[in-house]
């Protein structure tokens, strides 16, 4: 028998007290970017800087274990053409749950994207929009993958 929504809500409230000590997923913070000036027909680099709270780590773009979810940055719209993304190399760290060290980023890290600025790009400000997906853990627990928006204003000159 399906649980009615009202009952589910009541139970949920009751159990939030039960699991009040449950850890919440860490929020990865993307540092707001100043406007990036780019020249038509040239190559441009955009550095996205992000940070995780102390005690948490996220897998790098190339996790050392197949089952781990990699960090990925996807640019979804904007005037610039993607050429390549350099992810942080991270570090090999050993955790209580890992038999061997795994490739992770901690604290503050940067992702550098190289773009080509089309000669046909319109002059003026424009938004380059992307999304950063990550999956974080601490020493004892892991948290579902999350996606945070990345918005950079570019000034095409």
């Amino acid at each position, binding site marked *: *028998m399906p649980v009615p929504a009202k009952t589910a809500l009541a139970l*949920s409230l009751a159990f*939030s007290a039960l*699991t009040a000590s449950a*850890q919440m997923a860490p929020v990865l913070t993307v540092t707001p970017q100043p406007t990036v000036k780019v020249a038509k027909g040239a190559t441009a680099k955009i550095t996205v800087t992000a940070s995780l709270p102390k005690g948490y780590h996220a897998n790098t773009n190339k996790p050392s274990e197949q089952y781990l979810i990699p960090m990925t940055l996807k640019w979804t719209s904007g005037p610039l053409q993607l050429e390549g993304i350099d992810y942080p190399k991270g570090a090999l760290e050993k955790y209580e749950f890992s038999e061997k060290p795994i490739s992770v980023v901690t604290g503050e890290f940067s992702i550098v994207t190289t773009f080509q600025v089309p000669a046909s790009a319109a002059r003026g400000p424009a938004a380059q929009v992307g999304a950063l997906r990550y999956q974080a*853990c601490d020493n*004892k627990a892991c948290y579902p993958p999350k996606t945070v928006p990345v918005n950079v204003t570019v000034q095409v000159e």
Partner: protein
Amino acid sequence: MALIVSVGLGTVACAPQEPARKAVKDDKDRKPAPEFELKDASGKVVRLADYKGKVVLLDFWATWCGPCAIEIPWFVEFQRKYKDQGFEVLGISMDDDGWKAVTPFVAAKKINYRVVQGSDSTADLYGGVEALPTTFVIDRDGRIASVHIGLSSKKDFEDAIENLLSHAGSGKDGAGAKPGL
């Protein structure tokens, strides 16, 4: 009883130490485990109420969760060791990719207990499970006797299971919180 005395003496002999942690909550502090309906890999609907009268280890996990992968072999062992005493492990996978990710993992880990596909609403029902693994040990009356958030110790689980298996259920219909509670 002998075990309790032995543990008690051990604590005194080794003092000062942290007070011994309770394996399970006191009877009066246990709340009914919320009922759910979820599907296993074959599409069969699984309800918590199906486990009425049994001690259940309810494990929220995911294939991408390293700490979960540490605990799962323990649960495989528990399922084998205690099944005949009225014990079952039930895994709730929180993988977004569903069975495509879970089925090969279940085979690789030789999981010998039932696994169902969970969702955010299942997690919400249990207080908003975010950290994985999160494991609830449920008594024979369908009430939550202990909660383990993150990687726990095998002994903590085993102590809880053995404690609960040593007690007969009250026979009250507390298994799975029913609508209207």
